[in-house]
């Protein structure tokens, strides 16, 4: 499939808005999911470290 | 088993009639919603006739959905549900009894009211008849499916909206064929296929829904 020029590729025969609207939104959604997964993992590890540190301090004061 | 079913049915009916507000609730909601539509879209008869099956069915659906909060929650709160789980009778039978009572109180009045409301929408006589039959077969299905959702959300905060969210996708086939049967009568194609399918859904729900509800109740009460 030879597009001839960048302009033709972007224009998508007049349907550029629809085609790119679809592909770009899909990319954004999947990228957002990946970002959310990374942030979730970081958040979990951070919260759990605080939790374990507090638990350790509790055990130390008790013994 | 039949005695247990009868006992639960009679108890729930008795409780419902003591709080007559609940009984009337679903019916009043149904009447008000249906009566609001012509005010919203205009009094043109042909438009109302086209809309009637959908409007009446959606209103019945919403009225049934609103009344689901009464199904298990009161018994859960006063401890009766726990006793029912401990009782020797199969939970499925008890659930069936409660759903039957729920339908008699919240579903059957809608079926009886529907012809009068159908007249507001200028529905012809045969369409009114089909409407009644479709609601007669369909509202028990709504109660049965609703029972599963009510059991799943027992004691959960925000359960009112959650029940609606859970139950609406499952109501879609009933709505499609219920409203479709009246539409088919109005357009002359005949409603047998729709009503037979609704009957099939009813049989399927009678078999599966009490079982799923019982499982959900056990999960909720663990």
């Amino acid at each position, binding site marked *: *499939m030879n*597009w001839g020029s960048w302009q033709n*590729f972007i224009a*998508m*025969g*007049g*349907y550029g808005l*629809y*085609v790119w*609207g*679809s*592909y770009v*939104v*899909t990319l954004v*959604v*999947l990228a957002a*999911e*990946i970002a959310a*997964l990374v942030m*979730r*993992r970081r958040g*979990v*590890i*951070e919260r*759990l*470290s605080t*939790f*374990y540190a507090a638990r350790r301090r509790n055990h130390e004061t008790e013994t | 088993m039949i005695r247990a079913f009868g006992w639960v049915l009679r108890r729930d009916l008795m409780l419902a009639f003591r709080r007559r507000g609940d009984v009337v609730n679903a019916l009043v909601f149904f009447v008000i919603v249906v009566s609001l539509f012509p005010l919203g879209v205009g009094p043109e008869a042909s438009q109302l006739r086209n809309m009637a099956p959908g409007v009446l069915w959606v209103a019945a659906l919403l009225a049934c959905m609103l009344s689901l909060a009464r199904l298990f929650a009161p018994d859960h709160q006063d401890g009766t549900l726990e006793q029912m789980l401990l009782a020797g009778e199969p939970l499925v039978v008890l659930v069936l009894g409660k759903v039957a009572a729920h339908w008699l109180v919240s579903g059957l009045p809608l079926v009886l009211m529907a012809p009068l409301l159908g007249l507001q929408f200028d529905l012809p006589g045969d369409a009114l008849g089909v409407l009644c039959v479709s609601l007669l077969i369909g509202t028990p299905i709504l109660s049965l499916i609703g029972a*599963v959702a009510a059991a*799943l*959300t027992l004691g*959960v*905060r*925000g*359960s009112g909206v*959650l029940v609606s*969210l*859970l139950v*609406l*996708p*499952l109501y*879609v*086939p009933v709505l*499609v*064929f219920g409203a*479709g049967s009246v539409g088919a009568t109005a357009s002359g194609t005949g409603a047998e296929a729709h009503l037979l399918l609704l009957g099939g*859904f009813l049989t399927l729900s009678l078999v*599966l829904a009490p079982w*799923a509800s019982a*499982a*959900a109740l056990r*999960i*909720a009460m*663990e």
Partner: protein
Amino acid sequence: MTKSERFSWFVFSSPQTFYPLAGKLQPWFAAAAALLCAVGLYISFFVAPTDAQQGESYRIIFIHVPAAWMSMFLYLVMGFWSGVGLVLNTRLSSMVATALAPTGALFTFIALWTGALWGKPTWGTWWVWDARLTSELILLFLYIGFMALQAAIDDPRRADKAGAVLALVGVVNIPIIYFSVQWWSTLHQGASVSMKSAPTMAATMLLGMLIMALGFWMYSIAAVLARVRSIILERERHTDWVAEEVGARA
């Protein structure tokens, strides 16, 4: 090997053993996803020819159809693992089911969004009450209902089991819902408005769709593995191995 030394896959049904396995596998699936999607995108833009009737707008099909396939497939997988967790009372199966839901919901959204953007140039309206799009919309509600129910229940095991009942009820209902919506749509609109009226499948178009679908599948596995690892850490936080794991990472 003696009988007692024979390897069993069931060793991975414990969160503790599954966690590192998932961690090792995840990058491979991510890489496979990137590769397959790159190839799929290349085919969709540079190999597949222009369609005679729909022009270039049909290229949306390379995302719309694979996303729709994934949305339905992931719901079935979610129902399966939910069911396993309910029947066998295993925690990990339910955690996997919980991890599947958001990815499935996102693919459903993508299918609906791309469906709308395909419908506009093809039939002139943003939303078409086509049987398949309408069923996708209902599927989105089923996913959201599952996630909302699990979020509303505080006790994790009750949330697992309640979600499982809901997912299984949904799985039973999906064919019924699809059948009713299809009946309803053909009755009211006839066959003219249907996503099935896609261009006659040139081999390249089908290939592109299949490769994108495989790419989405690999992506889903990678995403679900990552999510379930976070869920395992959260749910098993009272164990020593998680304390060690977090200590090593923090």
